[in-house]
């Protein structure tokens, strides 16, 4: 392990795999806890859980530098955590506390954090496409070699803004990746009822490089993202990455009946294609980690999330005089 290069590389690979595993698990436990907070009436408002989609955010963000940019969505906890956000400050924001990422002014759908390149989660479907593309414009203009990733769900495919931005990105060769998470449902409607033609034909029409990937396979997502991010960074080539995934829970924490789909369908995704379980099996099979190590990680993550929730619950609300602060810079 000390001298030859190959083992050193593999040590890096192991470290990376463990990091991805831990991050996926952190997102899983985070959003399970979000549901718990909602159920116990401890969280104001609603939240949209990322459960089931963890491999997409983690696979893509693992391919990014800390100073690369992302824009996120209303279902954004996973993106923010994958890009490096701290669970305690995330929970604090979800609970409307002053120490939260946005000092309690944004909440679940608007986590933003310059220190991790997070330009902000956005509650207008497709609404962040301009911001992500503009960040890529700045990166190219300023020569910073940063890449920008625009996360959006397949519901955003119905928004014209997305296509205006993709046209600009390809026309001006901007280092931006449009990461489409197809979790099959535009809120309560199956995407096949809202989406004409072939999704990948849309970026193709702009001459944009486009790929699709199994969004439940974090290794596949990471490999594809790495390729596209490197292309963007080196050659200012934008790309479109379609990640096929599944939303385990309802549109938001309060969407309990889910009459628009079957319990069998949900069970099939959860048992046969769970991104965390699949990856854990692979880690063990490859000898990269044993079950004891994974259990230890599980327990560490559990403790971290518990502590984060306690921190957020104990934190203070902002004082009323802060209502008028930060309207203008």
């Amino acid at each position, binding site marked *: 392990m000390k001298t030859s290069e190959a083992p050193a590389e593999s040590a890096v690979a192991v470290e990376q795999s463990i990091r991805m595993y831990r991050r996926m698990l952190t997102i899983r436990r985070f959003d399970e806890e979000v549901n718990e907070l909602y159920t116990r009436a401890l969280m104001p408002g609603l939240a949209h859980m990322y459960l089931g989609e963890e491999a997409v955010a983690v696979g893509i963000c693992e391919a990014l530098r800390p100073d690369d940019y992302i824009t996120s969505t209303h279902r954004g906890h996973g993106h923010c955590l994958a890009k490096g956000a701290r669970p305690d400050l995330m929970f604090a924001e979800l609970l409307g506390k002053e120490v939260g990422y946005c000092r309690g002014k944004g909440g679940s759908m608007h986590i933003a954090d310059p220190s991790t390149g997070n330009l902000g989660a956005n509650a207008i479907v497709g609404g962040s496409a*301009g911001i992500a593309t*503009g960040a890529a414009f700045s990166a190219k203009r*300023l020569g910073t070699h940063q890449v920008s990733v625009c996360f959006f769900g397949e519901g955003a495919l119905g928004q014209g803004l997305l296509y*205006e931005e993709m*046209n600009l990105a390809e026309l001006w060769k901007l280092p931006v990746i449009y990461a489409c998470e197809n979790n099959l449902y535009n809120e309560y409607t199956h995407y096949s009822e809202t989406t004409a033609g072939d999704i990948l034909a849309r970026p193709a029409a702009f001459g944009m490089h486009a790929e699709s990937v199994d969004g439940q396979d974090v290794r596949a997502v990471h490999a594809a993202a790495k390729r596209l991010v490197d292309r963007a960074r080196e050659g200012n080539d934008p790309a479109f990455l379609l990640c096929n995934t599944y939303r385990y829970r309802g549109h938001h924490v309060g969407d309990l009946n889910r009459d628009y789909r079957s319990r069998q369908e949900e069970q099939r995704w959860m048992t046969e294609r769970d991104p965390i379980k699949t990856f854990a099996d692979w880690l063990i099979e490859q000898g990269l980690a044993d079950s004891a190590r994974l259990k230890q990680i599980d327990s560490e993550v559990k403790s971290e999330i518990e502590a984060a929730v306690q921190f957020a619950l104990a934190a203070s609300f902002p004082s009323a005089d802060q209502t008028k602060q930060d*309207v203008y*810079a």
Partner: protein
Amino acid sequence: MPKAGPEAGVVETTVRELTFAEAVREALAEEMRRDPRVFVLGEDVAEAGTPFKVLSGLVEEFGTERVIDTPISEAGFTGLAVGAAMTGLRPVVDIMFGDFVTLTMDQMVNQAAKVHYMSGGKWKVPMVLRTTLGAGRRSAAQHSQSLHAWFSHIPGLKVVLPSTPYDAKGLLKTAIRDENPVVFFEDKMTYKSKGPVPSGEYTIPFGVADVKREGSDITLVATSSMVQVALGAAALLEEVGISAEVIDPRTTWPLDERTLVESAKKTSRVIVVDEGYGRYGVAAELASVIAEGAFYNLDAPVKRLGAMQVPIPFSPPLEDATVPTDRSVFDLARELCGRS
């Protein structure tokens, strides 16, 4: 001559007569020379210099890297500007006709205006959206509106309405240096009108109204295209012995409430003239501010004069009937002063 005021401290050099369009262009050119982060983007802004020729010559000096022709995608390039502003640049977006701002509304209202607040003050959006307002070009209902009230309604945005070349230059320079999203409305019928502009460096702060004419019997608060109308009315009023004061707020937000209220207290009668629709509009808001602030000093209700509540029609006699004129302001002022 520009008058002394908060913008004094001007290095009084030579004063030239510039058109409104030249003043706008000069402000942009100076700011682009001063700050390499500033760039312009919009439809036909480069070689064409916009259909109004406001930006003619800019691309020759700064190149197509900084004066950028875009596709006809108002939402797209406005959204791109929001992101670019957040990440280290200072975009100046050109929206050719004010009517087209409707296409940018999500990016301006839900994104640009909210980013700073929603992020707890962590991100900021130093961008300018320049656009036009005003009827009178025989362009019908989709090229003639004055939609500045829409933006004035939204916390997080600043809204600027220059009425003279001097104000246009000084206010645009301030807008470009501001750390917030600023919407800058230019009256497209005013582009060729001339006025004195000093050659030296100056800026005009936001939230400072300008007294365009002093008077004692009635206050005419007027914005943008309506300032000349109010001054025209004031000249007519003088002939019948009524002394009208004309006040131009110059920015609808921030708003110099004090100057409006003080003038109202002095004259006791006020008409607000604004080319947007009066109902639920800028005129309505300014009238309300004055009524609240000067109620006990008023001798008559504060009146609003705005565009007629119809889509702006094409046919000249119809279009001309929709916008306040020197004569309509004069008539209302005389009535308000009990001299009709």
